[in-house]
């Protein structure tokens, strides 16, 4: 092979550098597309839905007339379902995470649980809807209630809560546990007074991300047969027909924000598109602010903790 002249080598280097630059530009373009989609989405929904975004929209029920429809039952439903979801998923997920990190022995039972959690995270959300339709709605007779929906979403986000709990616990150095055990604390006391408090910010981040995912989930809730047209609110505790209790609302029929949006986008009348845009904007604000909160929490946590 003939030796290259200096000019040829320079040209080779220049070509290589140019390819680098081109690729870099490509990378930036791809990232920009992602950013553009977010802006386009939020911008379009805001622009289209602007005229409906007033107090009346939040305080009126869905109606046959597009201009009088509101999202009252949807946002109340979403918040109540999230409440049930958090109440079920947080204790279960955190307990499972603690068990796997602090208690579990390395044996086949643990292996099965771990493989299982990884696989559950890849199961399509609509399959959780079918599970819940078979078990919660019919076998346990909970019906198409807030409780069924909340439990479905809790199972759906359980892997997220478990994984983030485990990651938060794993970041705590062994010396903390050794110190605690050395002064005579039991395993649970170590968890209760050291591991859980130190892992709290990490767990919280995972819970918020999980709930942000749950609040936007539509498919599993439609699958359990949630109604798309609800013009009433779940009963306030201790009101309604006696014997009225604190938890009557969990058995109430409901609708949630994503279902309301789905209902409005699937109507042929374009007047409802405006409602869908406005409701979509509200949902996006809810989800993005939850995500932003989680990102900020994580950032803050990384800055503060130095072992």
């Amino acid at each position, binding site marked *: 092979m003939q030796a290259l002249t200096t000019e040829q080598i320079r040209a080779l280097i220049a070509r290589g550098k140019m390819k680098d630059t081109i690729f870099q530009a490509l990378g930036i373009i791809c990232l920009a597309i992602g950013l553009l989609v977010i802006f386009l989405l939020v911008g379009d929904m805001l622009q289209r839905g602007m005229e409906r975004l007033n107090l009346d929209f939040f305080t009126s029920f869905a109606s046959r007339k597009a201009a009088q429809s509101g999202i009252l039952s949807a946002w109340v439903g979403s918040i109540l379902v999230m409440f049930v979801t958090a109440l079920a998923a947080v204790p279960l997920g955190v307990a*499972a995470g*603690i068990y796997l990190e602090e208690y579990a022995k390395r044996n086949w039972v643990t292996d099965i649980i771990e493989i299982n959690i990884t696989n*559950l995270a*890849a199961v399509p959300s609509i399959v959780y809807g079918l599970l819940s339709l*078979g078990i919660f709605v019919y076998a346990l007779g909970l019906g198409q209630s807030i409780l069924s929906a909340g439990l479905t979403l809790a199972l759906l986000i359980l892997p997220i809560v478990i994984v983030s709990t485990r990651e938060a616990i794993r970041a705590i150095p062994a010396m903390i546990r050794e110190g605690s055990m050395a002064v005579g604390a039991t395993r649970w006391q170590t968890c209760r007074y050291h591991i859980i408090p130190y892992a709290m910010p990490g767990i919280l981040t995972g819970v918020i991300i999980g709930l942000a995912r749950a609040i936007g*989930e539509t498919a599993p809730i439609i699958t359990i047969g949630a109604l798309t047209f609800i013009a009433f609110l779940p009963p306030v505790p201790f009101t309604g027909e006696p014997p009225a209790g604190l938890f009557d609302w969990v058995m109430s029929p409901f609708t949630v924000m994503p279902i309301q949006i789905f209902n409005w*986008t699937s109507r042929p009348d374009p007047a409802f598109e405006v409602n869908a845009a406005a409701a979509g904007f509200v949902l996006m604000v809810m989800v993005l602010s939850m995500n932003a909160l989680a990102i900020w929490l994580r950032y803050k946590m990384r800055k503060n903790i130095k072992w």
Partner: protein
Amino acid sequence: MNHAMSANNFSDLHQVSDRLSRKFTRNVSERLIEALLFAAAAVSVLTTVGIVYVLVSESYHFFQHVSIVDFLTDNQWTPLFDDAHYGIMVLVSGTVVSSGVALLVAIPMGTVIAIYLSEFANPKVRESAKPILELLGGIPTIVFGYFALLIVTPVLQKIFPELPGFSLLSAGLVMGIMIVPYISSLSEDAMRAVPMSMREGSYAMGATKLHTALHVVVPAAVSGLAASYILGISRAVGETMILAVAAGMQPNLTWNPMEPAATITSYIVQVALGDLPHGSIGYQTIFAAGLTLLLITLAFNIAGQWLRRRFREAY
């Protein structure tokens, strides 16, 4: 000090036995707590058992009416008509086409972003790009459905005037954008795990950044990349709302992305929106469809785990 000790001497005996008994209750409660924590961890296994039980038992009833051969080979899906046909391939074709379109967008874009972030971008860009991608991945799918139907479809119709209002193409494109963050974040993690010494070796031989990225880092991280693609595929196959909103819900055996079609997931949504009585054959079809969906994603998961083991490079 001494005084206090001797004054307490008398009760010391008491305290010892007291402590022993406390140790006993303490052990019991420790065990109890461990059992509770284990029960919580076992819920995830119960969930899987529940999913398999529900899908298989309802599908079992379904397959007593419909033969598996018909289910797999019939080319019509009309379960709610008088002349009922149950050819799942009709729904599978919709799923395959929409997922294919989505992956054609998501795999190149996700991989380019991952290579860029891991090999080219400075840490500041990387730190600010990750939250953006995370936000993109966190957008509810129903909102993406709205995006596909009311923003992307009109734009596509300007390019392809014959495109109908509902199409697999527009739903698939948006689905691709939705999947990008999943692929890019997992791929980037895999590439960042490749040791620096390999890059340094490549640079020392005079390779450019791009050459190092494509010929050293990507081959070393190939198992991670494959795993991220597989995750992308299962997301695409299981995606529901974008398709239910933007791809129309009429069953249509087609391989053309310009047509509207139902997918496995959007069929389930369509039936759930209606009012089918519990236990009817129409009700059971959604479980048979769900079982098919689960088997497809399971197959991809197993393939992914196999790939990861087969091509894992250990450093």
